């Protein structure tokens, strides 16, 4: 059986911006696959190409073995797409929207009523379904959007940042629901810039940055692959670059230190990779004391998905995210998403 989704060497430019430079992914049937990356990494563009909303400049995309470029209708029938921005017609009731959706996916007329009743009960929408969507709160809108995406029982449910703007409780509820979908056999592809979301939910993850895939694997394999423990050391709240540099040289000389990265975005903090050994912290603190260096903060942990990102890009996901948000041009992005 062909994988649920295969993306090969995807490339997509918008004007002078390389939204996606080179993305290749294989998503197996029945797994939850997470696409993790900061804002502006190319996640949404990848999904838009998959869901036939954008035409790739080059590369191949297949859904269950059929190219979305040559067989777009077949792909659209197999995919359920839940966009990041919930677009509802505020004049329609939830039921009317689902009826429209059912007709657009050519669900036989005799089955429409029953199918709508199913998704309404699945997502506990019965209280709201006959009210106009303009009266819905954010969480209900998202739920209706999920219901719409599931109405035609897609093989692959594609969700773009499904929990942005939801509170923790709703987020966990969405996670539970996606796990249930997987158990029932649906392949789920989600994008997220929340580390914990991907860590908690995804069977496999691809980390994507600046339009490139920088790592793929199960979350635990990616973390274990890094090896060693992580020590984050901040000499001062804002450490001068020269001091960070000299400390890096000093600590690199320690036998159990495998790697040192200076994280500029976090006031030149030092991120160390060390052999898992209990006295690493102590030894480092001792060395700092002997060199007469201050310690603002120091902590040790097992590697996280963020460390996978850090190792590949030299900055943490959160920092990359913040930097990307500052650089975003909402007007331009709106233009890209408009058809």
């Amino acid at each position, binding site marked *: 059986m062909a994988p649920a989704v295969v993306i090969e060497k995807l490339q997509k430019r918008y004007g002078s911006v390389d939204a996606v430079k080179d993305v290749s992914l294989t998503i197996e049937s029945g797994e939850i696959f997470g696409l993790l990356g900061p804002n502006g990494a190319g996640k949404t563009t990848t999904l838009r190409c998959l869901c036939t909303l954008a035409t790739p400049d080059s590369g191949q995309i297949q859904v269950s073995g059929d190219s979305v470029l040559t067989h777009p209708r077949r792909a659209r029938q197999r995919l359920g797409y839940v966009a990041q921005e919930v677009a509802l017609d505020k004049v329609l009731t939830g039921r009317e929207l689902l009826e429209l959706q*059912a007709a657009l996916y050519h669900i036989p007329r005799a089955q429409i009523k029953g199918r709508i009743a199913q998704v309404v009960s699945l997502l506990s929408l019965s209280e709201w379904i006959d009210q106009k969507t303009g009266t819905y709160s954010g969480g209900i809108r998202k739920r209706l959007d999920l219901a719409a995406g599931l109405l035609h029982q897609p093989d692959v449910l594609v969700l773009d940042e499904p929990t942005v703007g939801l509170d923790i409780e709703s987020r966990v509820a969405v996670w539970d629901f996606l796990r249930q979908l997987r158990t029932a056999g649906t392949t789920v592809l989600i994008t997220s810039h929340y580390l914990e979301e991907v860590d908690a939910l995804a069977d496999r993850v691809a980390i994507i940055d600046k339009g490139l895939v920088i790592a793929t694997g199960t979350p635990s394999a990616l973390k274990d692959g890094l090896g060693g423990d992580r020590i984050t050391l901040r000499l001062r709240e804002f450490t001068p670059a020269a001091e960070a540099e000299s400390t890096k040289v000093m600590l690199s000389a320690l036998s159990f230190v495998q790697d040192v990265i200076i994280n500029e975005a976090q006031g030149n903090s030092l991120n160390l990779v060390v052999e898992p050994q209990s006295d690493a912290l102590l030894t480092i603190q001792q060395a700092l004391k002997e060199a007469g260096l201050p310690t603002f903060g120091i902590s040790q942990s097992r590697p996280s998905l963020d460390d996978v990102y850090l190792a590949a890009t030299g900055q943490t996901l959160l920092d990359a995210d913040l930097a990307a948000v500052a650089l975003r041009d909402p007007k331009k992005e709106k233009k890209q998403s408009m058809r």
Partner: protein
Amino acid sequence: MSQTVTPPQANLDQLRPAGGTAAIAAQSSEFSDFVQETAALTKRLFIQLQRRPSTLMAGLIQPVMWLVLFGALFQNVPPGLFGGSENYGQFLGAGVMVFTAFGGALNAGLPVMFDREFGFLNRLLVAPLVSRFSIVAASAIFITTLSVLQTAIIIAMSACLGAGLPGLPGLALVGTIVLLLVVAVTAISLGLAFALPGHIELIAVIFVTNLPLLFASTALAPLSFMPNWLQWVASLNPLSYAIEPIRYIYNHADWSLASVVMQTPFAEVTLAGSLLVLVGFGAVALLSVRSLLSRSFA
């Protein structure tokens, strides 16, 4: 915008995916699928109209205002000045009819533009539509229905105001003429809705085309009133080719397709000739929009 989603209790059987091509209903034909999607999209537009009747109301009140107020403006002109019409109100009826239909059709692209801007169009585009022209078809059906309704009301109104009523074949021809114009202009407006960057630009285009096309047509005054250059402009304006035949049908019970309805600076135009011009206009509009839509739907 933080909201609680209560954990849904899923029945796993209901979640099971339909399974590849089985999902593509093999029993239904492409044509019935096209009908299904077009009907559903049209239904949405009518639900919108029903819940937001203000545009419909405005579309009905506006022509009445035209007829009553603008019609009264020239009430005291000497009889016979406006060709065969007995009074200005009667003369104006045809112009208002065409202009109202034209205005409605010109706005056809606006809902589509808003769907683009709000992302609702993406919902339609990720769906396995047989043809994305169903989106265009739904808008065309909607606007056409609305125009027919408006035209009927204007015909009734002007009959009440003393413009008289053509016979049944005449009415049918009036309806045909309005339809031809509406289809052509709707196509152009929908094309613009996909070609222009946003609703501001679309409204600007509607704004600058609407009134000038009205003034540069025979809606408000006959060609003979105009300076030569404006006669040329009005004679190249498709609206004139809708207005003049309708006016002729109203004023001449003995009309035929060979009747000369308009004396342009370059030729005499018969009723059949006007129809031909409208058909040509529609064909050109549809063809150019078709290629444009194919590109943005590719």
